[in-house]
């Protein structure tokens, strides 16, 4: 039982390190066992050291750094054992444009293995989608329609996916 857990822990940890490196080239994020000898007696810490900085408690990271670390962890789990679909609601709320683009690229890559349903208010992530659903409200009733990604205002030409 402990053996099975350690296999998951090590694989997800390996994924996390690689994914975070992709997001924050000279930063790192990793998992750490509280209890190395008897892992199932302790917890699992999530540690992050954004580029140029020390490993600090997660709570003092900025909103964007927390978002990147959390998404990297989620993608690391998904890479190990994908759920059939993922639903993301405004996960780009606290990401600057450059980081939103990196997350968009990762989502594009991982959406080959699982369905990604991504709600966003900004074009950046939307430009990476295969298909777009538009939602509007008329007199309090939602209307649903399909959009072409090229119909997005803002410049689709500069985003080669």
């Amino acid at each position, binding site marked *: 039982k402990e053996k099975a*857990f350690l*296999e*998951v*822990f090590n694989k997800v940890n390996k994924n996390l390190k690689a994914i975070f490196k992709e997001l924050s080239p000279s930063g790192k994020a990793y*998992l750490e066992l*509280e209890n190395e000898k008897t*892992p*199932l007696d*302790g*917890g*699992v*810490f*999530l540690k992050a050291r954004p580029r140029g900085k020390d490993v600090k408690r997660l*709570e003092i*990271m900025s909103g964007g750094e*927390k978002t990147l*670390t*959390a998404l990297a962890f*989620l993608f690391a*789990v*998904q890479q*190990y054992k*994908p*759920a*059939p*679909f*993922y*639903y*993301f*609601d*405004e*996960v780009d*709320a606290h990401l600057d444009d450059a980081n939103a683009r990196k997350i968009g690229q990762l989502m594009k890559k991982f*959406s*080959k293995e*699982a*369905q*990604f*349903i*991504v*709600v*966003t208010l900004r074009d950046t*992530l*939307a430009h*990476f*989608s*295969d*298909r*777009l*659903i*538009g939602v*509007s*409200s008329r*007199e*309090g*009733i*939602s209307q*649903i329609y*399909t*959009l072409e990604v090229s119909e997005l205002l803002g410049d689709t030409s500069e985003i080669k996916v």
Partner: protein
Amino acid sequence: AYIDRINVFGFKSYGSRKLTIPLGEGFIGIVGPNGSGKSNIGDAIVFALGLATAKSMRALKLTDLIFSSKGKTAPYAEVEIVFKNNGAFPLNTEEVSIYRRVDLNGKSTYKINGRTAKYYEVEELLSEAGIPRQAYNIITQGDIFRFIKMTPYERRELLSELA
């Protein structure tokens, strides 16, 4: 497997009419103005798949999910999630439909592929298809920080469940 489409009637802002939300494979972007009804799509998924203990649907009671406007209320709210199976579910249909309706009296009815089912049957089916019990694959607005805020023990639990 993936969600091919979602059929709704009387659910939250979708009005008292049959409406189909087309999804499909790959990377689907959902866009539109504030308050238009984007997050209600996530709520529809959480509702139909019985994941409300894991997620908030921003409703104090189930009947809050029934469309109401200017004094008029829909007779019930229903959501049907239609998956393309691709061998993920232990059923031999090409599509797998999970349906839930809540009536004005607050009573829920579940259906799997059209026949009435108990909640635990839906729960088991989803678990077989790889949809995690704590629904960490569904990130509602602001929910992403839970991976940061969770305790080391909760994180260990999440990993154990994958084993």
